[in-house]
C-alpha cells in the first residue's frame, strides 16, 4: 500500500519562536518497498513518521494511505491512530514492562478480540520467524536489547499490517549487533513484501536497507531516489555531502559536450558527468574521496588527472585516509592501507569523469 503525502507542514511554537519541523512536504512512499527517510538530527524525520501514524497533528496538508485519506486539513479529516491500521517500531522499542513477551506480541490481536487459539498460533509462528522460540514467558524487561528489538518487530508484524513504520530501530544497539540486525531486518521485510517507512540518520543503514531513499534537511525533502542514484548521481550538494563524504570544489561551466560537461575549477579543468547547466554558470564539483585513485604508470584512460602533495595520511584499518593539497585547496583522499606513500610525496591521481558530479551552487 502506498503512502501519499501532499503539502504537509507541521510547526512547533516554543519560546515565541516558530520551528518549521515539516515544511511543505510532498512525497510518495511506494507500496511493498522499503523507503528510508534519511537526514541529520532534528530535520523532522520523527515528526513526519508521527504525522503518518497519527500521533502528531500536522498544521496543513494531506496524508493518504492506500486509497484512504487519513488526514486532510481542508476536509477536516483526522482518522485516529488506532483506526489507521498501521504498525510502528519505536526507537525505544516501547516494550511494555509489565507484560511477558507473549502478551506483548499478542496485544494487537487481543485488542481486536481474536479467538485465543488463533492468537496462540499466530504468536508461535511469529516468534519462530523472529527467532525467539521459547521466550514466551520471559518478562519483557529481562531480555537483551537485540531481543527487545525483535519483540517490537514481532508485535508490529503480528496483525499483518499493510504498512510498517520504523523510527531508528537500530540506534540503541551496539555496532556489531546493529549490522547483524540490519541484515535480518532486510530479509524479513523483503520476504513479507510490505510497505516500510524507515527513519534513520545513519547513511550506511539507509544505503544497505532501502529500495528508495528520501533525503531530508531541515523540514523538507531534498531528493528521492534509489540508493545508487543517491550515492552516485545526486544533483544536490547537501546530499553529496551528507551521504558519505565529498570534496566540494567551486567551478564554472566552460562547455557542454554530448555526454560530458567540462568545468574550470579551483584545481584545474575537469571533465564531468553530463549536467544541464548553462555555460559560465557557477557550480560545485563534488568528488568522493574513495573515487580518487592513484595513477598507475601505464595509465592511458580519459580520466581527470590531479597532481597533489600528500599532507597527511592516517591508517584506519581497511584503508588510509588523509588529505592532499593542490595549491591552497585541500582534498580528502582514501587509498589502500598497504601503500608506502608518506607526507610530502608529490603524487598523481585519477578521477573518472563519471565520478565528477556537478551540483548547483
Amino acid at each position, binding site marked *: 500500500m502506498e503512502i501519499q503525502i501532499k503539502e504537509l507542514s507541521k510547526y512547533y511554537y516554543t519560546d515565541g519562536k516558530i520551528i518549521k519541523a515539516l515544511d511543505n512536504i510532498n512525497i510518495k512512499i511506494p507500496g511493498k518497498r522499503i523507503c528510508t527517510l534519511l537526514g541529520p538530527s532534528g530535520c523532522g524525520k*520523527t515528526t513526519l513518521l508521527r504525522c503518518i*501514524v*497519527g*500521533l*502528531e497533528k500536522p498544521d496543513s496538508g494531506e496524508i493518504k494511505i492506500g486509497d484512504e485519506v487519513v488526514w486532510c486539513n481542508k476536509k477536516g479529516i483526522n482518522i*485516529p*491512530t*488506532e*483506526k489507521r*491500521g*498501521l*504498525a*510502528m517500531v*519505536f*526507537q*525505544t522499542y*516501547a516494550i*511494555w*514492562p*509489565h*507484560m511477558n513477551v507473549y502478551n506483548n506480541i499478542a*496485544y*494487537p490481536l487481543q*485488542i*481486536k478480540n481474536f479467538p485465543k487459539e488463533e492468537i496462540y498460533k499466530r504468536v508461535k509462528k511469529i516468534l519462530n520467524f523472529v527467532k525467539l522460540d521459547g521466550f514466551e514467558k520471559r518478562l519483557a*524487561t529481562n531480555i537483551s536489547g537485540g531481543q527487545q528489538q525483535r519483540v517490537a518487530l514481532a*508485535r508490529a508484524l503480528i*496483525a499483518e499490517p499493510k504498512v510498517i513504520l520504523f523510527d531508528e530501530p537500530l540506534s540503541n544497539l551496539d555496532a556489531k549487533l546493529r549490522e547483524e540486525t540490519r541484515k535480518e531486518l532486510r530479509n524479513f521485510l523483503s520476504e513479507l513484501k510490505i510497505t516500510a517507512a524507515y527513519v534513520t540518520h545513519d547513511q550506511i543503514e539507509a544505503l544497505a536497507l532501502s529500495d528508495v531513499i528520501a533525503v531530508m534537511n531541515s523540514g523538507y525533502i531534498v531528493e528521492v531516489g534509489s540508493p545508487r542514484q543517491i550515492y552516485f548521481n545526486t544533483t544536490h550538494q547537501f546530499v553529496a555531502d551528507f551521504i558519505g563524504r565529498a570534496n566540494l570544489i567551486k567551478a564554472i561551466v566552460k562547455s557542454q559536450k554530448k555526454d560530458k560537461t567540462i568545468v574550470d575549477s579551483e584545481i584545474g579543468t575537469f571533465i564531468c558527468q553530463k549536467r544541464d547547466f548553462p555555460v559560465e554558470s557557477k557550480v560545485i564539483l563534488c568528488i568522493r574521496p574513495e573515487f580518487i585513485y592513484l595513477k598507475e604508470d601505464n595509465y592511458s584512460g580519459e580520466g581527470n588527472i590531479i597532481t597533489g602533495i600528500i599532507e597527511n595520511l592516517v591508517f584506519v584499518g581497511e584503508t588510509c585516509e588523509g588529505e592532499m593539497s593542490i595549491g591552497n585547496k585541500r582534498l580528502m583522499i582514501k587509498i589502500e592501507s598497504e601503500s608506502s606513500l608518506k607526507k610530502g610525496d608529490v603524487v598523481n591521481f585519477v578521477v573518472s569523469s563519471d565520478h565528477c558530479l556537478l551540483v548547483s551552487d
Partner: protein
Amino acid sequence: MNSSSRNTVILLVIVGFLTVSPVIMLLFGSFSRGLSVSGAFTLDKYIAAYTDPDLGEIINNTVIFVFGSSLLATLLALFLSYLNNRTDITWKFLFRIISITPMMIPHILFSVSWVLLLNPSNGIFNLILKQLFGLKNSLFNIYSLGGMILVEGLLDMPIAYLIIAPAMASFDVNLEESSRVCGANTLQTLIRITLPVLRPAILAAFILCIVRCMASFAVPSVIGMPGRIYVLATHIYRTISIGFAIDYGKAAAIGMSVLVISVILIIIYRYLTAESEKYVTISSRGYRPAVIELKRAKVPLFFVLGLLLFILIVLPVLVLVYTSLVPYSMIPSSRALSMMNLNHWREVLKDPISILSLKNSIFLGIFGATIGIILSIFVAYTIVRIKTRTSGILESLSFLSFSFPGIVIGVGFMWFFVRTPIYATIWALLIGYIATYIPYGIRPLSSAFIQIHKHLEESSRVFGAKPLTTMRRIIVPLLIPGITSGWILMATMFLRELSLSVVLARPGSEVMAVQILRFASDGLWGRLSALGIIMIVISTSLVALVTFIGIKLKP
C-alpha cells in the same frame, strides 16, 4: 576505630534511642502488671484488650475507614496526576498548590471545618439546605463513617499525589503511543498499559495512605468520637484518657498490633517504590509528550479541579473565619453579618491556657525543627556519604519511624519519661516530636547530599585543592534547599502536632492542637476557630519567611 565510624556509632545510638526505646517500652508495658513498665510479667493486658466485646466493631470500623479513605485519596491523586501530566488542562500551577497546601492547614482544623459545615444539628451547609428546600431533617451527617472517609481521603490525597505524579511524569509515553498504534483506543490504553505500568507507584501510594490513616487521630477524634464511631486510634485514646478505668497496658497491647501492621506495610511500601523506579524508562525524545486534548471535557474537568481546590483550601479557612466572628452557628446572611464581632477572639486571647499552648507550639515548632534539622544533617550525611553497615541500619531505623502511629508511640514515650524529671514538661514533647518526625528532615537532606557527592568529587578532581571555595560555592548552595524544605516540613508538623501530644501533654505543656481538641469536645467552636486561624497564620508565615531566607541565602 577511626573517627568517622565512631561518629556513625554515636548517631546510631542517638537515632536508635529515639526510635527504638519507645517501642521497647511499649512492648514491656504491654506485658507488665500494674501501671509501670517494670511490673511482673503478665498476659492479662493482651487478654483484656483482645477479648473486649467492642473490639470487633472497632476493627470493623477501622478497616472500613482506613481502606475507604486510602482508596478515595489514591483515586483522587490518580485522577489529578493524569489530568496534570497527560492532558491539556489549563492552569497547571494549580496542581502544585494542591500538593503543598496541606502543610498550611492542620488536619484537625480541616476536620473541624467539615464538622461546622455538615454536622446534623447546626452544620452551616445543612442549615442552608433546610432553608432552601424546607426540609425537616438535616441532609448530611458528618458524624458517620462516610463523613470520616470523605475528610480523611481529602487530607491524604496530596501524599498519594506526591508519589503518583512523579511516576506519571517520568513515564515513557512511547509505551502508550505504541498501544494506540496497535489499535487500542485511549481508554483501552489507560486500562491495559498506563495503569498497570504505574501499578507499583499506585500501590505504594495506597499503602502509604493506609499507614497514615491508621495513625490518623484528628479525623477519628473530631468526627468519629461525637458520632460514637471508634477506630483503633480513638479506642487507644479512650483507654488512656477517658473515664476511671485508665489502663496504659491495655492500650499498649492494642498498640502493638497497630505498630506491627504499620511496620510491615512500610516495608512493603519501600519495596514497591524501588520496584516502580525499575519500570521508569524515560523516553529518548526530549520533548514533553503529546498530551490528550480534552476538547469538550475541558470545562467540566476544570470545574472539578476548581471545586477540589476550593474544598481543600478556601472552604476550611472561610468556615473558620466566619465561625470565629459570629456569636453562634447560623446561616450566612445580612443578619449574621450585622451580628459579627470579635468576642471569640477576645476570649481566646484572654484565655491563659490558649496563650500558653500558643507559646509552647511556637517554641516547639521553631526550636524543635532547628534541633531536628541539625540531627538530620548529620544522619543524612552519614547515610549518603559513609556507606557502612552501621549507616545502613541508621537508614532503616530512620525510615521505620515513618510508620509509627503517634498515639501508639506516645504511650511508649509516656512510660519512658514517667520516671524522669522531664515528664510532663515541654521537653518530653520535644524529644517525642523529633523522634517521630526525623524522617521528614532526613529525606530532603539525603537528596541534597546525593547531589553534592557527585559535584564535590568532580570539582575537586578538576580544580585540585580549593576546599574553601568548593565549600562556599558548591556545598552551601546545594544544602540550603534541603535544609529549608526539611525545616519547613518539620516546623509545620510540630506546630500542629496532635496525636503524640494528646498522650504526652500535661497541664503546663499544652500545645495548640490539644487545646483545639479540647475546644472541640466542649463545643466552643467560635474560640476554636479563632485559635485555628492564628495557627494557620503562624505556620503560613513561618513557611513564607523561611522560604524567603532560603532564596536570599542562595549566592
